[in-house]
């Protein structure tokens, strides 16, 4: 048993070694998510599963927005509209009895792609602040159209009769199956966007962001590339909308509210733009923050707001950026893994030992138990010591770097 475990860990480490840092983080995230349904019964039941689903759905949306913001340099402030278009396509079809996967999913993708084409064809003609305002306006337009759609619930929204049928079965009603379906979609999106960014298309897009004039001089037309990127991002976000409609079994204009678009930008920036694991981390961090804060107080937005201002003012690069900085301070992923591995092995060994001694002691009597337990603790402590030293050193380094950051911030503040 332990051999098998060790060898599988070794294989995993070997595989992870071949990946770039960002990919390793993403792989760990995916592994964590894949384990969530197994762990959720121990950690609070299906509630955790639902949060996990929301995180993944918004991670898909944030990934599509990263394609625009991080790669294309297009700050879209109306991205939630695509979430809504995808969700409404799903909901409207379902209300007409067409809630099957073969109809609803392509419809959601095509509807959001068409909406992206129509609005993008105009929005992409402009740059910078104009683009921000125009996408915001188009998002608001979609919101108001949805509120005036009286046959489909208008303001109140639309309840789906059931989740989308897969081959005529209600398999998505099973929360675990649905969870893994979303996970698969997220993985596909991650790989797809990764491929896209690395492709010629992605390079041209990035080139246009860096120096548009130079790209034009060597013969690229910015407009076509940007519109294409906008349409691709829109339809990926439509996929997220399809999933969101299925998760809540409800569609409402609130999905397209302009604050939702703002929240998507927050996810991308909080996670760290310029990376692909950033948006996933950002979505997870934002939703968990929202979950925690909203449980703390109903005025959680009054806490979130200043937090965002502080993130913008002082923490460039978001979570992914912080991880990168951490890594550059000589703490490699391999070391972290080795430390975790060592910790796990020590704990497992100590546990086995204690259990063995403990069972003997039970047979031997209470006083012997106490004696042996003391011995076991001592042994465990001696084994812990080197680890503790190592951990302590890292903690000191962490505290020092935090102090340095604080001093820097204070100095900057004083200079102002």
């Amino acid at each position, binding site marked *: 048993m332990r051999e098998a475990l060790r060898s599988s860990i070794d294989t995993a480490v070997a595989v992870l070694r071949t990946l770039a840092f960002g990919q390793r983080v993403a792989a760990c995230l995916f592994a964590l998510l894949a384990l969530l349904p197994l762990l959720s019964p121990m950690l609070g039941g299906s509630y955790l599963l639902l949060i996990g689903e929301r995180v993944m759905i918004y991670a898909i949306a944030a990934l599509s927005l990263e394609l625009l913001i991080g790669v294309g340099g297009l700050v879209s*402030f109306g991205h939630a509209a695509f979430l809504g278009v995808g969700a409404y396509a799903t909901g409207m079809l379902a209300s007409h009895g067409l809630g099957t996967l073969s109809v609803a999913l392509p419809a959601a993708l095509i509807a959001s792609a068409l909406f992206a084409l129509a609005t993008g064809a105009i929005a992409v003609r402009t740059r910078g602040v104009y683009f921000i305002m125009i996408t915001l306006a188009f998002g608001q337009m979609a919101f108001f159209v949805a509120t005036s*759609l009286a046959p489909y619930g208008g303001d109140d929204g639309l309840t789906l009769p059931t989740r989308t049928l897969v081959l005529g079965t209600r398999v998505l009603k099973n929360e675990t199956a649905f969870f893994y379906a979303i996970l698969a979609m997220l993985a596909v999106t991650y790989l797809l966007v990764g491929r896209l960014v690395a492709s010629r298309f992605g390079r041209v897009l990035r080139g246009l962001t860096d120096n548009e004039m130079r790209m034009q001089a060597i013969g690229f037309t910015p407009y076509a590339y940007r519109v294409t990127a906008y349409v691709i991002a829109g339809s990926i976000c439509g996929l997220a909308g399809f999933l969101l409609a299925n998760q809540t079994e409800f569609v409402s204009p609130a999905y397209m509210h302009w604050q939702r678009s703002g929240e998507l930008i927050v996810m991308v920036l909080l996670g760290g733009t310029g990376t692909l694991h950033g948006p996933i981390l950002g979505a997870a961090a934002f939703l968990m923050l929202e979950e925690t804060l909203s449980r703390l107080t109903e*005025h959680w937005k009054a806490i979130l707001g200043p937090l*965002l201002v502080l993130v913008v003012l002082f923490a460039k690069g978001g979570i992914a950026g912080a991880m990168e900085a951490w890594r550059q301070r000589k703490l490699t992923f391999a070391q972290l893994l080795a430390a975790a591995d060592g910790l796990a092995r020590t704990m497992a060994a100590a546990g086995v030992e204690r259990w063995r001694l403990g069972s003997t002691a039970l047979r031997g009597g209470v006083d012997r138990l106490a004696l042996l337990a003391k011995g076991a603790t001592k042994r465990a402590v001696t084994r812990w010591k080197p680890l503790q030293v190592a951990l302590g050193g890292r903690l000191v380094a962490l505290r020092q770097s935090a102090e340095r950051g604080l001093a820097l911030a204070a100095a900057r503040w004083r200079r102002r």
Partner: protein
Amino acid sequence: MSTSLFVVQVFNGLQLGILLFLVAAGLTLVFGVMDFINLAHGVQYMLGAYLAVTFYRLTGSVFAGLLLALPASMAFGLLLEVLVFRHLYERDHLEQVLATFGVILFLNQGVKIVWGAAPLNMGVPDVLSGSIPLMEGLRYPVYRFAIIAAGLAVAGALYLFVAKTRVGMLVRAGATDAAMVSALGVDIKRLFMIVFGFGAMLAGFAGAMVAPILSVEPGMGDQILILAFVVIVIGGIGSIRGAFVAALLVGVIDTLGRSFMTDGLRLFLAPSTARIIGPALASMAIYLLMAVVLAVRPAGLFPARGRA
């Protein structure tokens, strides 16, 4: 579609347009001079309304409420500038958007904490209550006329300020090339503060003026902010004249669209279809206008000079 209803709606549209202009003027000035995109501008409008209600309750006079709200909203705008916005001028637009979004979240919630989530009301001043007859069988509230008149007066004063005074000249110069103005020995930080405080006061003025006729509630600024964005995109960023023309256009088209789109469609569509499509199309009208303007003139109707 009776003529009197049409006239009333045109006046309502003008009134909305004037309010939009007051909000958009500050937004477009701040953007034009400082290259700073301030999402929190709509919150200034909301605060203006709340401050007006508060001063009205303290003093018992609507006029005092309106007048005291002006310096108060200016002071609040300057406070925000010193605390947050000043540190964002050098950042890129994405970060400005995010930080000002955070400010919106905070202030919308803050207003809820201070004044409660329920909408507030304040009365129309006695002098301006009642209505005047426009034509036979048609009366229009005096207060709404007062809003239009006050807005036009402010627009005129703003024009004189920007076109004829020394500070106005610096503002115009700043919109063209802020770095050059700074190099010529003008304290650009102070200029920024003046422009920002002024913009905040205009938005607060708009909010204070509508406080007697609208319900004052958290989030009331978000809606007008997005309309103001549409206005300055149509008018051309940085241009006051463009903001004025576009604000009136947007106000009238939006109001008329909402009242007459369904009836208009009924002329050549089945009534049931018209009833479904009408409201949807009406809420799209101004965005379609924006799309058409952008298709013809990507930089807006009156592009400010020196800006791509």
